[in-house]
């Protein structure tokens, strides 16, 4: 194995890099655009050819760049004879197509896009043939599907173009998925994803019990890509693409990728019975069927498309034979098919371009009007027919020779007979292409009067036709290339001799029969065509569309039944599925042994538990009474806080109880605008169903919780406990975790909370400016409103309590690092202290005294926390590394100064701002709804209550 493959990744990348250029260069004109497409292609070709001597000598050039070694994925490339042959074909034909497309595309077509897509596709193809890692190969394989989708659908305004592109993507994409599976199996069998390893492990693969699944899956990928029966139908529909695309995709590249893959995998997979029967049979059927349909196609490109299908079938069949001679024939035919088929596609494009039609029945007599095009087309088509002295003849003879001694289920004549029929049909459609397009008298009803195109357009097919004749007359010039590629395919050391005259062999008679039969077919074409048109035959596109239709209606049915706009249905489905999944997981077993005993239950705890359960049941049973259930839900929160205290979680208890308070306030405020009762509307059946789901979910969660409460497991908290004081400077481990160990999490969480506050504020603004505002203004609250809205006692009490409450908040904040408390709790406590003022003295009075905007509080909180974290960078530490020290000021005790406290200050501000913003927004709605605001506190005189009522009654 040689090295010096440093160029390989560069070669593979060049088209992708080049793809960036045409879109820009189109501004400099069409010639510049085409030139800059050709440059990367030509450069890659030159770099490739520098390796030619080494590869010819049998060296394999490799280059590996480690990418994701854990997955077995590396960007490794290798170049052997087969890869060299295909790479030269891809780049060489790419150059010719670039030239041809420059003249083919009209001024209205966006040429920059075209060349960009072309280079992307070229890069993907090149990647396939140069990849050494099959995972990398799969990536490129999918890229060809995607980029060919763009190319086939290039004429976006044509519905056929879009449909053809979709069909190609669906079929080749589905095949690609199957192939991923196959490749993964293959990699598992061998234990490596490197092609060089896989190719060397052929015996191991064939002996594996996974051989057949892997083979079928990989072949699905290859068959879909190479349009083999029954997946052949996408290829003719892809003909809606511009002709340069068809010429490129369907002669040299896209459809040959499947053939390439079968050739590449030949040493690893071929030579077994399943391989022969699957590959050879599918190839044989495709060859005959494609040729038969091609004979009756009137569209020039459709004829060529089915002819391509047929020839791909021929190649597949040859590879399926599994013999070395057949592999040589296949490699040789790959070269020959490329030369004549690309030339023919370009000829068809020229005819279309000049006459504005591709319908054979409207053509004829073009030989006199377009002599150059006619010459090129005729010569290439004769090669397709397999007439002697053209290169198509040589490989077809080799194919017939191989077929003549192939047994199919012990049957000696079926393969040769069908192969001859395929060849015969092939002669038929080739001759029809020649005589019905170029032959016959000149007509005067062409849609556009034709003449030969500019030189740039016929130069590329002419070059290919020269190759057709050169190889046809002097086959030995292709010998080194065929030897190089065939040796790479088979892994053997072969020395094939290509010659025109093989002596009197069965293949000669088959050839003669094919040519004579083909000529008869041409003569009889008119009556046969009439019979064909009358005969019923399955239309692949209709079947495909029906399948897609079924898939779509199936998907729609699933969506409509499960996703019908009823949230309660989604939730029911979700909960039920979760419960079932949990049950299935539990039946899987694997529960470790019980390692923990039960803690005793003191009577007080038992009472709390009963309260909790009773409150929960009460909430569920009386949830229609909204106020009542809200009061009772407070009991649950209180009991949970008490539970946290008992179970050694003082921080949680503090947080829970303060969150409880603001939650109830929030819900009370909301309930002010909502209906006070829930109507009874779900039928009994539904309630029973929901009850069953709820019991299932509750039982499942309880069982799960009980199961793990009795079992120990390894925890990572020992680290936190050990380093809390030494590393974080605090004895309250929970707080140190929040502001130090997991400070990044906390930082994210205060941002989330801040965003939630802003969302609520924004929603409120939208509501007040929307149609709801009118409704709010007209709300009548006179029935359920206390007349003394700001009772004297409450106003005075809250004013007195305010400084105390704030001090409690500050105290909780400051002690947080060492004792239960901290920024979260302090933020909530201060929020509650402020909310008391709102409730007691009224919205207007409080707002008039507000000094800082709540938005700003959130912002400052996040900024302070972020800057504290970033400050660690200045000291050269990672984000949020904390520093601390102890300060001793004489009058007070020694205390600690930690950057973590600064971070906690940010937490405090953000939490406080967010909570205040949320409740403030809800209160503002109330204010908007016409609630009067006290100008002064206690401006309501209770003594005037009677007079007020009298006044109201008068109105």
């Amino acid at each position, binding site marked *: 194995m040689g090295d010096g493959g440093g160029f390989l990744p560069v070669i593979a990348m060049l088209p992708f890099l080049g793809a960036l250029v045409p879109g820009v260069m189109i501004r400099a004109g069409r010639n510049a655009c085409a030139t800059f497409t050709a440059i990367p292609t030509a450069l890659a070709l030159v770099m490739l050819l520098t390796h030619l001597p080494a590869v010819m000598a049998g060296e394999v050039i490799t280059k590996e760049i480690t990418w994701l070694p854990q997955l077995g994925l590396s960007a490794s490339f290798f170049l052997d004879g087969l890869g060299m042959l295909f790479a030269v074909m891809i780049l060489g034909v790419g150059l010719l197509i670039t030239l041809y497309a420059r003249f083919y595309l009209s001024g209205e077509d966006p040429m920059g896009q075209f060349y960009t897509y072309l280079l992307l596709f070229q890069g993907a193809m090149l990647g396939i043939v140069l990849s050494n890692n099959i995972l990398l190969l799969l990536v490129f394989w999918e890229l060809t599907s995607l980029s060919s989708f763009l190319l086939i659908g290039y004429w976006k305004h044509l519905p056929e173009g879009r449909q053809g592109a979709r069909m190609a993507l669906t079929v080749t994409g589905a095949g690609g998925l199957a192939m991923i599976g196959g490749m993964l199996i293959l990699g598992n069998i061998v234990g490596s994803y490197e092609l060089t390893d896989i190719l060397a492990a052929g015996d191991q693969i064939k002996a594996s019990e996974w051989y057949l699944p892997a083979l079928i899956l990989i072949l699905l990928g290859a068959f879909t890509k190479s349009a083999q029966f029954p997946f052949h139908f996408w290829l003719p529909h892809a003909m809606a693409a511009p002709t340069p695309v068809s010429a490129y995709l369907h002669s040299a590249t896209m459809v040959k990728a499947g053939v390439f893959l079968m050739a590449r995998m030949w040493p690893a997979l071929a030579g077994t019975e399943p391989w022969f029967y699957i590959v050879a049979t599918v190839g044989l059927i495709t060859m005959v069927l494609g040729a038969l349909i091609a004979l009756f196609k009137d569209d020039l490109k459709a004829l060529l498309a089915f002819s391509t299908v047929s020839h791909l079938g021929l190649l597949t069949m040859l590879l399926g034979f599994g013999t070395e001679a057949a592999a040589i024939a296949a490699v040789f035919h790959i070269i020959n098919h490329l030369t004549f088929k690309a030339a023919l596609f370009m000829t068809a494009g020229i005819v279309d371009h000049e006459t504005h039609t591709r319908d054979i029945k409207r053509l004829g007599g073009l030989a006199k009007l377009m002599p150059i095009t006619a010459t090129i087309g005729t010569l290439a088509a004769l090669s397709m027919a397999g007439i002697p002295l053209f290169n198509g003849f040589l490989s077809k003879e080799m194919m017939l020779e191989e077929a003549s001694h192939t047994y199919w289920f012990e049957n000696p004549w079926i393969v040769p007979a069908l192969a001859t029929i395929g060849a015969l049909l092939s002669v038929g459609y080739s001759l029809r292409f020649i005589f019905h397009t170029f032959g016959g008298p000149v007509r005067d009803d062409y849609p556009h009067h034709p003449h030969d195109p500019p030189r740039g357009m016929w130069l590329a097919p002419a070059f290919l036709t020269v190759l057709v004749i050169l190889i046809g007359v002097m086959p030995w010039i292709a010998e080194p290339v065929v030897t190089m590629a065939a040796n790479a395919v088979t892994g053997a050391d072969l020395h094939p001799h290509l010659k025109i005259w093989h002596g009197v062999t069965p293949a000669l008679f088959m050839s003669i029969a094919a040519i004579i039969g083909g000529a008869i077919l041409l003569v009889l074409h008119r009556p046969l065509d009439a019979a064909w048109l009358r005969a019923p035959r399955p239309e692949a596109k209709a079947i495909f569309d029906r399948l897609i239709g079924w898939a779509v209606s199936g998907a729609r049915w699933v969506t409509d039944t499960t996703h019908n706009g009823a949230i309660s249905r989604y939730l029911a489905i979700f909960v039920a599925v979760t419960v079932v999944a949990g049950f299935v997981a539990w039946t899987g077993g694997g529960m470790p042994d019980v390692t923990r005993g039960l803690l005793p239950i003191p009577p007080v705890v038992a009472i709390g538990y009963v309260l909790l359960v009773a409150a929960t049941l009460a909430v569920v049973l009386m949830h229609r009474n909204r106020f009542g259930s809200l009061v009772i839900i407070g009991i649950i929160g209180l009991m949970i806080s008490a539970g946290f205290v008992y179970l050694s979680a003082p*921080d949680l208890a503090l947080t829970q109880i303060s969150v409880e308070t603001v939650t109830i306030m929030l819900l009370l405020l909301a309930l002010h605008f909502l209906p006070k009762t829930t109507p009874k509307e779900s039928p009994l059946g539904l309630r029973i169903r929901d009850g069953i789901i709820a019991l299932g979910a509750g*039982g499942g969660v309880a069982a799960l919780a009980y199961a793990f409460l009795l079992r120990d497991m390894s925890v990572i908290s020992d680290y936190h406990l050990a380093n809390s004081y030494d590393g974080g400077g605090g004895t309250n481990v929970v707080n140190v975790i929040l502001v130090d160990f997991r400070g990044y999490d906390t930082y994210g969480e205060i941002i989330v909370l801040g965003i939630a506050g802003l969302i609520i504020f924004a929603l409120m603004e939208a*509501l007040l400016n929307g149609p709801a505002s009118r409704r709010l203004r007209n709300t009548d609250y006179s029935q359920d409103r206390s007349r003394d809205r700001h009772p004297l006692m409450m106003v005075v009490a809250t004013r007195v309590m305010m400084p105390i409450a704030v001090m409690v908040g500050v105290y909780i904040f400051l002690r947080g690092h060492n004792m239960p408390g901290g920024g979260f709790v302090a933020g909530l406590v201060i929020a509650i202290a402020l909310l008391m003022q709102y409730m007691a003295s009224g919205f207007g009075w409080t707002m008039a005294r507000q000094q800082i905007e709540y938005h700003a509080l959130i912002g400052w909180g996040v900024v302070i926390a972020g800057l504290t974290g970033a400050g660690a960078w200045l000291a050269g530490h990672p984000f949020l590394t904390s520093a601390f020290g102890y300060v001793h000021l004489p009058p007070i005790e020694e205390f600690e100064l930690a950057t973590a406290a600064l971070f906690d200050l940010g937490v405090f501000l953000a939490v406080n701002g967010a909570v205040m913003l949320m409740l403030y927004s809800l209160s503002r709605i109330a204010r908007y709804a016409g609630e009067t605001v006290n100008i002064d506190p206690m401006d309501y005189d209770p003594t005037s209550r009677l007079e007020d009522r009298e006044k109201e009654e008068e109105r």
Partner: protein
Amino acid sequence: MEILVASAIGVLTAGGTYLILRLRAFPVILGLALLSYAVNVFLFASGRLATNMPPILDKSGADVSYTDPLPQALVLTAIVISFGMTAVLVMVSLGAYLERESDEINIPHPDDDLSDDTATEDGK
């Protein structure tokens, strides 16, 4: 004790699940509140239960054992975040109610067997 905590989690979950399957916004909010309790206690319990072992380090150097502080830290933020979530939900359902004058949570659907008896087009 373990039985009490586990069954309390179960009761809260069952109650919350039943309530979120109701057809009006307010019971659903109550249900989510119950579910939040259940989830928070569940997460907290994943640190296993322990009494009189708060994770406040003892500086006297005595050999004291502590309960697992990590679930506590996680639950602490979860409690605060679940408040934010509840608040957003309340605001959204309030907005929906004020716009539509109905706090049904299901979009009226012609062939929806769950709420067709209450489905009102409401001019939309």
